[in-house]
């Protein structure tokens, strides 16, 4: 079968789904959708359809990125645009089957928006809603639209045409195209991809390897997971393209074991590729041979570092080694190896499909293209987004993310995970690109973006990240192993209220040493969260150390909860909800918190009705409230 035949058949299959005279229902079934209850919804749906004897085409799709709206269900009726419904519950599902599928009421009150041609009264275009409007979805173009377990869906939407084009070009031409596109490594460091491929291609040796780094270890990041779960073929196409350009006959995907669904879908996808002749011997009749092996990680953050990752593939402890020699010269089993992140491979595929001119129109002078971000933390609209590089932090957080959760004040955005830093309010209007983030002391990283509000303590965040890197340090080199340990100890005592004069300077000194002296990227970047928080939030550090106060009201040892006797209405809500049973009181008896028992979980603060607002959280002071429950004053409700 020629590619044209394959493509014609794929388009046929896709059209018969898209233009089917049956009702089509699309279920978001990535990990986050499943965690939000997609399975229950799907069971309910099938049951309801069966009861009513309705036949419908049900397709499991990846994630469209609006995670805060999960579980998501889309319904298309013949001749109508697709309509998205969010935050589905079994009850809403039943209503939609009755109202929209059986009758013809699309329930605009439940709809998020419509997708595709045509419009439905009362429902806006989903891609014109604030979260999606300013996004440019290139890498994520198929996520949420195609069934990731069907290669034909991918092909029908332009997939593998980049590979076909690549195979008509010489390796040098492919590399040249990549260079012109301006693509830089999406794993975080931002090294130009074309140049990296060239190094490996030019390296002497007949046996070469390529690796896809899918060991997405940064806490708070799930871009790669979503892409692998929602559109695995885009990554795989990029790898086959790379194998031709570099001259590799063997590729590896190193994926975290914590992503079982991604691994499952990769396995299905590679089997499909072999059937179509996109993988294996004599690919598409060109004589090019290439195989892909999927390797599961075993839970070590340091394996995201390239030399450690290669050691792990070889079956060893995942410990980094000094560079040079760089992997392009001596990598896996000592052979020239090229390693790229999941998103980089997917970008390479789309560049070869659409051409470098098209790709390079997005982004800035030095940072071309788009970047996916996992927008999480204290933000209204959490999700997976994709924006052109150079967009300001403010646009990302306020336009796309809808601003800080509950209308609170923006404190900082953390990018780059444990290797990155915090960007304060003063950075809101600077563009998000490789250079600007580096100038601010952070890094692009793989794309985690965690929003922090006024109640997020920068000292606690620094302690959190250094505890993480400390725990994940492989222990090979001294600065990382011992330096992070000392930094963690100092930060711990500051958070506990035992900080000492000079601790800030000590942290800076050790931090600089760890940065300069460590062997690999883990240690070289581990101090970043500490150093940037000191740079931007020094006042918070000072308050913890000198005044024993946590201005963000976060650090447990420095805060107390009280119930204000003049506001308490003795409603018993906090008393019943306290998991530590630390609240004393009764009917018409003002409630009191037993400070010795209080675990400072904040439940009472959260559950106290807003109209009473009787629970307060304070730092650095003791309030003069009764120790025992006292009767409410006469005359009060």
């Amino acid at each position, binding site marked *: 079968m020629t590619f044209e035949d394959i493509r014609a058949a794929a388009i046929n299959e896709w059209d018969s789904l898209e233009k089917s005279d049956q009702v089509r229902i699309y279920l978001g079934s990535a990990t986050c959708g499943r965690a*939000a209850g997609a399975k229950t919804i799907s069971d309910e749906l099938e049951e309801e359809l069966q009861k009513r004897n309705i036949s419908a085409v049900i397709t499991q799709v990846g994630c469209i990125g609006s995670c805060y709206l999960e579980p998501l269900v889309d319904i298309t009726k013949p001749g109508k645009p697709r309509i998205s419904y969010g935050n589905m519950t079994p009850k809403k599902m039943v209503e939609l089957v009755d109202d929209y599928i059986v009758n013809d009421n699309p329930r605009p009150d439940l709809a998020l928006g419509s997708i595709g041609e045509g419009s439905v009264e009362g429902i806006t275009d989903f891609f014109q809603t604030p979260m999606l409007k300013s996004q440019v979805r290139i890498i994520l173009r198929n996520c949420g639209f195609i069934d990731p377990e069907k290669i034909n869906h991918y092909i029908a939407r332009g997939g593998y045409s980049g590979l076909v084009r690549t195979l008509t070009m010489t390796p040098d031409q492919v590399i040249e195209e990549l260079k012109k596109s301006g693509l830089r490594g999406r794993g975080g460091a931002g090294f130009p991809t074309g140049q990296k491929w060239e190094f490996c291609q030019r390296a002497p040796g007949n046996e070469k390897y390529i690796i896809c780094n899918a060991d997405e270890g940064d806490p708070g990041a799930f871009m790669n997971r979503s892409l692998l779960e929602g559109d695995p073929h885009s990554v795989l196409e990029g790898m086959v393209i790379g194998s031709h350009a570099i001259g590799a006959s063997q590729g590896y995907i190193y994926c975290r074991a914590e992503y079982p669904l991604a691994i499952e879908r990769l396995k299905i996808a590679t089997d499909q590729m072999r059937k179509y002749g996109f993988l294996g011997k004599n690919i598409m009749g060109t004589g090019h041979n290439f195989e892909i092996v999927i390797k599961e990680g*075993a839970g070590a953050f340091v394996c995201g570092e390239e030399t450690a990752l290669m050691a792990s593939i070889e*079956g060893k402890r*995942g410990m980094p080694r000094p560079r040079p020699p760089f992997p392009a010269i001596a990598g896996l089993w000592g052979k020239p190896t090229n390693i790229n992140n999941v998103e980089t491979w997917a970008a390479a595929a789309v560049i070869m499909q659409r051409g470098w001119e098209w790709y390079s129109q997005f982004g800035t002078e030095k940072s071309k293209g788009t970047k996916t971000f996992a927008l999480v933390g204290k933000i209204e609209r959490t999700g997976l987004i994709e924006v052109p590089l150079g967009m300001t932090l403010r646009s990302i957080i306020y336009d796309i993310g809808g601003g800080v959760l509950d209308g609170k004040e923006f404190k900082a955005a953390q990018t780059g995970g444990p290797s990155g830093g915090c960007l304060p309010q003063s950075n809101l209007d600077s563009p998000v690109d490789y250079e600007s983030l580096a100038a601010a002391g952070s890094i692009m990283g793989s794309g985690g973006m965690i929003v922090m509000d006024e109640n997020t303590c920068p000292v606690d*965040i620094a302690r959190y990240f250094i505890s993480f890197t400390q725990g994940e340090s492989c222990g090979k080199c001294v600065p990382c192993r011992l330096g992070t340990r000392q930094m963690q100890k100092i930060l711990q005592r500051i958070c506990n209220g035992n900080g000492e004069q000079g601790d800030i300077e000590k942290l800076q000194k050790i931090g600089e040493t760890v940065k300069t002296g460590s062997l690999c990227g883990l240690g070289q970047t581990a101090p970043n969260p500490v150093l940037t928080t000191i740079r931007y939030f020094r006042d918070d550090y000072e308050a913890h150390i000198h005044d024993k106060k946590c201005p963000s009201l976060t650090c447990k040892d420095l805060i107390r909860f009280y119930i204000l006797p003049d506001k308490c209405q003795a409603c018993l809500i906090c008393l019943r909800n306290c998991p530590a049973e630390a609240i004393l009181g009764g009917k018409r008896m003002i409630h009191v918190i037993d400070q010795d028992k209080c675990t400072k979980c904040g439940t009472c603060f959260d559950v106290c009705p807003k109209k009473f607002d009787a629970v307060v959280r304070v730092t650095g002071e003791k309030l003069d409230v009764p120790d025992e429950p006292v009767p409410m004053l006469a005359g009060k409700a």
Partner: protein
Amino acid sequence: MKEKITEIFTKFTDERDNLIPLLQKIQEELGYLPEESLKEVAKFLHIPESEVFGVGTFYSQFKLKPGGKKTVVVCRGTACHVKGGARIQKDIEKMLGVAPGETTPDMEYTLETVACIGACALAPNVVVDKEIFGQVNARKIKEMFAPAETGTTQD
């Protein structure tokens, strides 16, 4: 146990890079890596026992001791942290009476932490036997684990 391991070996070649997949397979079958199995693996791959042990202890996925009937994993990702993950962990520790990496004496629960499960939009998350519970709070935790002694879990 020996038969099971021997059977697993039939699915692998004795190449060195099979070490991690082999250990993963054995753990999947037996629930943990008994000392005996590490020795067998060393023999099968023709490498020193120390190397097998070194790999077995390096990666956090591998358990050298048997775990409880249920595994409770608290996500310690950044999104979970800023939304109270640390407190959730403390609450569960208190409720079950064990620290991460430990198993309750009745062998009912093993408590673990994970760097991030990537379901950040639902933070804070707790995973019980591969089922993700999102947006947990002190109250939900109490409901999930309160009757820890009897070993029943309520959603």
